[in-house]
């Protein structure tokens, strides 16, 4: 069972590295925003893993607020870039 947890951790670390490469080399701004969305979702999973690792139930509330701020951030960036062409 420890082997499967280590394999899952390796997959999550590879996902973070690939998404961060796309965040660095993205040709347009929208690629970077999409990569930022995926990075915040993976960070939510990592916060839940920390909550069950340190046995702190308050970290689950931190994960809820973090996913809320990720959603609001992506919506704000998209609407801002859309409004910018009209002027």
């Amino acid at each position, binding site marked *: *069972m420890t082997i*499967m*947890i280590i*394999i*899952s*951790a390796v*997959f*999550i670390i*590879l*996902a*973070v590295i*690939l*998404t961060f*490469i*796309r965040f660095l080399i993205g040709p*347009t701004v*929208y*690629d970077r*925003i*999409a*990569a930022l*969305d*995926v990075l915040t*979702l*993976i960070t*939510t*999973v990592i916060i*839940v*893993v920390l*909550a*069950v690792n340190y046995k702190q*139930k308050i970290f*689950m*509330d931190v*994960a*809820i607020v973090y*996913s*809320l701020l990720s*959603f609001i951030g*992506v*919506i704000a960036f*998209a*609407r801002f*870039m*859309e409004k910018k*062409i009209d002027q």
Partner: protein
Amino acid sequence: MINEIIGVIMFLIGSIFMFLGALGLMRMPDLYNRLQAGTKATTLGIIFTILGLGIYYPEIIFKAILIVLFILMSNPVSSSTLARSAYKKGIKYYEKTINEVEDICLK
């Protein structure tokens, strides 16, 4: 004992889906393909990983279901808004993409 096995297997499946979503975000040729790969696969991965952790530790299952429901509602909305904004700004397609409205109906 049985809930630990089910939780670990669901966590493994979810982490594989998150890796596939990040690989699609890296390898796809176009912004819209990247959004499609990076959002849908990652949403499925989030559902499997957080529900797997909630099954493994049953004391956090309520807030885990709350996080999963919120992400299930909010993530397609943010992806749709991002694609709409990019389409209005006129981001180029991949050259093999066929846009049925502009390429077929309007000609």
